[in-house]
């Protein structure tokens, strides 16, 4: 059953990165658009995301619940050490969520839209940065895990773990990844006259992602970030990286050519490869502290808990996934599913 639970954890993570990522990215794309294009993006995103928007963001709640139910010790270290970035991320999620509804549900479309748009765009950039910083902190090896917290000061315990160059680079990397996903998604969803805008955006985003990604890895390599060191000596990670590099070529071609389906598939492959490369070489040690890595399975909940959780997830998944798919299909939100 533990594998069912781990599967759902990974599954929620992938879907959250893809779906919420594309959603965060929409705000970032809007932020870096001319005024005219902003309006086009806003409209397209609302059509694509509107009905599923809330569902996209529930994946993170599912992840959190799985973490605390099944992996309480692991979760405990995260919420204590990374209290500050997590709180800032929540602030972003809150502002972004309300800004999204306000701008589409306000009965009057007047000057207040400017404020909602500004709130939405800023929060769209800040939230994934803090999400990325949190993930970067988990793997940067700066988290202090100790029982005698009095030996350390506030800065060492609660700031240095995440406010470091590697984590911040990871944060920027994730934000650029979101923008990339969104731009690629919009290639397929925008009206054909607007497709050129997103081809251009996706091209720039791809370059930014690759640049920041390489910078992050290089920085980690030369500064002995333990995650990167073990990562570069692991066969699976290297294969994933090489594949990812190779797949950049068809990705590039499909984006430049404005291929609606292919670009999306190759973008998805990139995200999957990045996650595989980041998570599998160390599994189950997905937490790096100053004293070495900690396994997610350390202090895993007892069998009775894992068993009921696994069954709940299977039943829940059985209800939710078909519903979600039906929702996507009913509203023709995935334009590529249409014949013509």
């Amino acid at each position, binding site marked *: 059953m533990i594998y069912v639970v781990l599967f759902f954890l990974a599954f929620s993570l992938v879907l959250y990165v893809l779906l919420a990522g594309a959603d965060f990215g929409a705000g970032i794309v809007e932020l870096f658009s001319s005024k005219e294009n902003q309006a086009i993006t806003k409209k397209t995103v609302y059509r694509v995301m*509107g*009905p*599923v*928007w*809330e*569902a996209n*963001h*529930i994946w*993170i*709640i*599912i992840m*959190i*619940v*799985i973490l*605390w*139910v*099944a992996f*309480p*010790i692991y*979760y*405990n270290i*995260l*919420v*204590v050490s990374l*209290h*500050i970035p*997590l*709180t800032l991320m*929540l*602030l972003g*999620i*809150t502002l972004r*969520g*309300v800004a*999204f*509804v*306000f701008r589409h*549900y*306000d*009965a*009057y479309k007047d000057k207040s839209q400017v404020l909602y748009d500004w709130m939405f765009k800023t929060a769209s950039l800040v939230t994934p940065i803090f999400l990325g910083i949190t993930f970067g902190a988990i793997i940067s090896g700066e988290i202090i895990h100790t029982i005698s*917290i009095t030996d350390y000061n*506030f800065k060492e315990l*609660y700031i240095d773990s995440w406010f470091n160059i590697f984590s911040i680079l990871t944060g920027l990397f994730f934000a650029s990844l979101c923008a990339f996903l969104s731009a690629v998604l919009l290639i397929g969803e925008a009206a054909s006259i607007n497709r050129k805008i997103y081809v251009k955006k996706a091209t720039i985003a791809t370059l930014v992602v690759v640049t920041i990604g390489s910078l992050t890895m290089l920085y980690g390599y030369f500064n002995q970030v333990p995650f990167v060191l073990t990562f570069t000596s692991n066969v699976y990670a290297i294969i994933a990286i090489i594949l990812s590099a190779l797949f950049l070529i068809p990705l590039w071609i499909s984006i430049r050519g404005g291929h609606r389906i292919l670009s999306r598939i190759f973008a998805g492959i990139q995200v999957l490869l990045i996650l595989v490369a980041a998570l599998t070489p160390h599994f189950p040690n997905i937490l790096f502290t100053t004293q070495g890595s900690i396994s997610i399975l350390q202090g895993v*909940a*007892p069998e*009775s*808990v894992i068993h*009921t*959780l696994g069954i*709940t*997830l299977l039943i*829940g998944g059985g*209800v*939710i996934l078909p*519903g*979600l798919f039906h*929702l996507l299909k*009913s*509203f023709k939100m995935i334009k590529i599913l249409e014949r013509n």
Partner: protein
Amino acid sequence: MENLDAARLQMAFTLIFHIVFACVGMVMPFFMVVAHKKWLNTRNPIYLTLTKSWQKGVAIFFVTGAVSGTALSFELGLLWPEFMKHAGPIIGMPFSLEGAAFFVEAIALGFYLYGWNKIPEKFHWITGIIVGISGVASGILVVSANGWMNAPSGFDYINGEFLNIDPIKALFNPAWFTQALHMTLAAFTATGFAVAGVHAYQIFKKRNIELHKKAFKIAITFGAIAAILQPLSGDLSAKDIAERQPVKLAAMEAHYDTSTGAPLYIGGIVNNETQEVSYKIEIPKALSFLAFGDFDAEVKGLNDFPKDEHPNVAIVHYAFQTMVGIGTLLMLAGILFLITLSRKRTWFNSPKFWLLFIILAPMGFIALEAGWIVTEVGRQPWIIHHIMKTKDAVTPVPGIVYSFYMYVVLYSILTIAVTWLMSRQIKALNNTKNMEA
């Protein structure tokens, strides 16, 4: 401010905020589907206009409830890491089911909001029902997790360790049913009266009267029925608490000395030093009867328990009085409404009638929050009743007070923003003509 106090304040503040939004988001879909059904049956365009304006309210409240709920799901761990480390696996069942129910709700809401003229009429209406049912299910599941904190079960506590965990037994803990029933009825009462009050105000101001009268009737019917049923559920809760958490009951009634045939205090000012309650109304033997169904039953007083296990008596007592007082008032108002129906609506023409319901609009939520204060402050000093104290669960991260301030500013702005947005919805509603079929 101490970290523990700041963490408790932050938790209280964010919950007080979330509860309002979650309740409206949970109950309003029912009003919406009733109006929708009436539109389908009568094809009276007023009902369509009403349904569509209520659905906007649902969408706004749903998202505000969802984001504040997301924040809370993190706050549980961020503020109370020691609690979650041990309790997380045990109460995982209600939370994971709640996650699933919430997901179903979000999907159904997606269908509902965007389904007009796109999906079959009947299916569209049913998705609205699913929104309501899964919302109530989410609420019940979360309350069950809270019930577990009051009545921990489904594990053996041996030498400071939680062994032999049975998540299903923890889900169906002894407190879940009474608490969930009380909370669900409270949510319907509070939302019913709040929504009805808003529409009563519009009628009072003579704006779009026909529509607002229809809206008022739907909302107040739910509110009135729930308010009339609520005392029965309250009685179940009181008897349950008398047995399981006698300290809480004693604090609710500011009952210091154990006695048989204990009187019930209504109102009064509590002096915890002298252990006296002044300016109260005393009903002989009523407490014994309400708690145990026997006028001569013994009711344990606070002095029978160690002083460091007492909650803040004054807060719990005042909150309890507020809840019961308003609850009674709303029940009477509910009865009044039902009488009005049988009186062939003559009272519907009286401005005084509408004024009454305008005044009552916020009352349900005040009572509901007071009720949560009774159960949460009354549980102190325990975070898990008789197992773990709140002070042992709080995060070691210092400076929580700043996070508390951040939430106060953020949620205050949100409250103002949502209120403003709703007033704009109503204004727009009054300015547009009813939709054509």
